[in-house]
């Protein structure tokens, strides 16, 4: 390393101002706002929320359709309304929301460096809640070859362009993915006057999008190509077509379009967690937490879709409510036991969250274990194995479907030995 680097490090730690809230929450999406609301209601010290965007509210701000607030607020509202409600509740409860404020580095344990128009801030809090959410993998991360064409967007960019900036997209879109967020993209495209000519999914089961299958097909007449993948983007400077491959036959064909929306394929925004030295769950790529949402660094907690990429906004918000309780007891001096067992999964399950169970710890948020499956399993039997023995088994009545979180009652965990060995979760049909 050059001496320049050292100079940069030294200067980087220089701050205009020091802040010392009781709790700092990173990210003002549903999880962060709800956590801040609950904490501000009961703590005497300051609860500070850092939001790098211009406005608090997170992803729901630009999801301009109904379906928000069901489980946490008992309401059925649009994304932007929901975002506003969460923001108002946090402010009313006395939390400070700092927007255009990005936590960029750690200055020390639990001490964040923040860049904002108000200056470079050093924030030293007694506890930190990481609620930075998740993003969709862009084209490069999905390694889709072809031309460097304009008009290839993630759902996030699409909704930013259309709902926050009133921008326009093309006329004919191919939507890659057929999960919840994909249909959200279709709605946004329709709003922007762009027809979805095809949705593609690598999954084979039509049921993987059962929730939208009938209404989706009826309302939009959108054909879905199952068991296909996009193998090439064609067109310069703008997309003219995509090449798609039938995964079973290997046959390829091109579909004309001027817009490609890449949906799903989420990755947590884990940068700060990793920079702090928090152990990550290699499967979710988010921080590895126990059922009280503690990371392995004392005083650093995590909540929302940074832990489970991704569940719905209301579930993220309820994570926030839960983490607030656990942060309070941490501030009151409670410390976790060092014992605990690791939860692992077997295919077709991709991940489980939370990933650690400690003896005597509270149940996870909403008393649910969150799982992600890569294959559709109708009414599966969830099986927990520990030490080569089946310790719990439960048939559930709902399917495990790709593209959305599969939630299982956490009382299954009552049957494991939290001082024993690794627990493996699997699905039997």
């Amino acid at each position, binding site marked *: 390393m050059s001496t*320049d680097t050292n100079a940069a490090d030294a200067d980087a730690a220089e701050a205009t101002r020091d802040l010392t809230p009781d709790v700092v929450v990173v990210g003002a999406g549903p999880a962060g706002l709800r956590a801040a609301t609950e904490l501000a209601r009961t703590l005497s010290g300051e609860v500070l929320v850092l939001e790098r965007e211009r406005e608090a509210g997170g992803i729901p701000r630009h999801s301009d359709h109904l379906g928000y607030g069901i489980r946490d607020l008992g309401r059925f509202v649009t994304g932007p309304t929901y975002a506003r409600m969460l923001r108002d509740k946090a402010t009313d409860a006395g939390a400070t929301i700092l927007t255009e404020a990005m936590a960029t580095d750690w200055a020390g344990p639990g001490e964040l460096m923040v860049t904002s128009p108000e200056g470079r801030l050093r924030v030293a809090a007694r506890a930190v809640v990481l609620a930075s959410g998740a993003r969709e993998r862009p084209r490069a991360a999905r390694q889709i070859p072809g031309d460097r064409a304009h008009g290839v967007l993630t759902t996030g960019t699409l909704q930013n362009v259309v709902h926050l900036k009133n921008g326009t997209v093309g006329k004919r879109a191919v939507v890659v993915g057929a999960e919840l967020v994909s249909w959200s993209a279709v709605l946004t495209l329709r709003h922007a006057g762009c027809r979805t000519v095809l949705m593609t999914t690598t999954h084979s089961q039509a049921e993987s999008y059962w929730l939208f299958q009938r209404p989706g097909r009826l309302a939009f007449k959108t054909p879905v190509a199952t068991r296909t993948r996009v193998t090439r983007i064609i067109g310069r400077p703008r997309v003219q077509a995509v090449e798609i491959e039938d995964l079973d036959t290997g046959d390829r064909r091109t579909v004309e379009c001027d817009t490609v929306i890449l949906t799903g394929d989420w990755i947590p925004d884990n940068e700060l967690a990793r920079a702090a030295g928090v152990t990550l769950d290699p499967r979710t790529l988010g921080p590895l937490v126990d059922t009280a949402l503690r990371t392995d660094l004392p005083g650093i907690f995590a909540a929302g879709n940074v832990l489970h990429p991704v569940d719905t906004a209301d579930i993220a918000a309820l994570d926030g409510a839960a983490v607030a309780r656990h942060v309070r007891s941490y501030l009151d001096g409670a410390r976790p036991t060092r014992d605990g067992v690791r939860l692992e999964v077997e295919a077709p399950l991709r991940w489980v969250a939370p990933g650690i169970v400690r003896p005597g710890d509270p149940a996870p948020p909403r008393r649910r274990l969150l799982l992600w499956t890569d294959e559709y399993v109708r009414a599966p039997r969830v099986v927990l194995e520990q030490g080569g023995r089946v310790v719990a088994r439960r048939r559930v009545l709902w399917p495990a479907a790709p593209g959305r979180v599969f939630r299982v009652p956490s009382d299954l965990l009552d049957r494991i030995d939290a001082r024993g060995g690794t627990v493996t979760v699997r699905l039997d049909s």
Partner: protein
Amino acid sequence: MTSAPTGPGAPTYDVVVIGAGIVGSAIARTLAGYRLSVALLDARDDVGEGTSKANTAILHTGFDAKPGSLESRLVHEGYHLLGDYAAATGIPVERVGAILVAWDTEQVGNLPGLQEKAVANGYPHTEIIGAREVYRQLPHIGPGALGGLTVPGESIICTWTTNFALATDAVRRGAALLLGRRCTGVTVAEEATVLHTSAGDVRTRWVVNAAGLGSDVIDQHFGFDRFHVTPRRGELMVFDKQARPLVEKIVLPVPSAVGKGVLISPTVYGNVMLGPTAEDLTDRTDTGTSEAGLEFLLEKGRRLMPQLLQEEVTATYAGLRAATEFSDYVVEVDAEQRYLLAGGIRSTGLSSGMALAEHVRGLLAETGALELTPRDDLPDPPRMPNIGEASLRPYQDAARIADDPAYGRIVCFCERVTAGEIRDTFAGTIPPTTLEGLRRRTRAQNGRCQGFYCGAEVAELFETRAAAVTAEGQAHR
């Protein structure tokens, strides 16, 4: 921006340099240091839009060039010239060093020859090391390395800032920047040469051809058929910044009979790069990526550094190199037509560019047909905005943010680009004309989300600013 009239009464330049890549910009900058009227002409709407924008961004010592070649001498000299110039202008450079890693006995056997070659190229600082030392210095490379050759001088550099600095310097020295003018034909006459371009004729006494991928076509306009450019596509994969701790040095392949390997290199932006492939094309504009290319890189990467493949890919892109049938640069003067060719400049042109500019100046002086009187009123070299990770960036600079809150407003989260930096590009000597140009000047949208968060915001900022620049330009007319 400098624009020049092209109709009747238009000036006759002393020299027009065709090609505003690194080589052309360096030549224009050098010549603008003399009492000459100079123009820098390019077919594209921005500087550095061709081969210069997508290379491996390594400042080469020239240790592995062909001894005795022009390339060897110019890379060797250019390494020092650009190193000094980078320090003066703030072009990001990190002196990380490189290790050529040998994976089989044939490659181990090639190391002493490479070391001798390095000495012949004026670089005596290499060292042959054993496997244990290779793993000490590169703990994350895959199993099976048998030894290596260290090249401590190899450095990483920002190729974009290099190009902008040289072109900005040229313009501030008085060179006219003539963008968006594709040269379609040439008429050489006694008094002046007329370059016929897509935006009108340009008159000049001398022409320097530094047109990169298009240099053979320009050469043909002067009646030559000396060489042919084959666009050689190099695909590259850029990994997430979280991979950067894996790679402290440039990991180079040892040339062998089996073929050319790929390299792994840190970048000055804090990423890790894997590549390039080498594939000859016919289309001189095809910068797309291919399925085979990406698969090839992944396969190589898995062996070179399996851990790297666990990290996210931030970007994949392809650059085109101007390969010719000659192994050396082709730099020749035709005094009769007042024409100089700087052709066959491969990716080493980044390192050699400034020395090549000196060489060109020397060749022009030798003809005696161009009077080269140094100017004593030259402006200082420009101070370029820092987009490298090794020095303080605006978002980290408490004093700067306190002075101007725009440097505290991060617009591109992944790359930590602020609204102040984006604004500044439009007030620069060569403002961006496209979003791509803005990316190369600031890094905005080059990060891991590729626009998921900031895509719409940056596009809006760009359009507002670009519209303001256009309106201002019209008001001045």
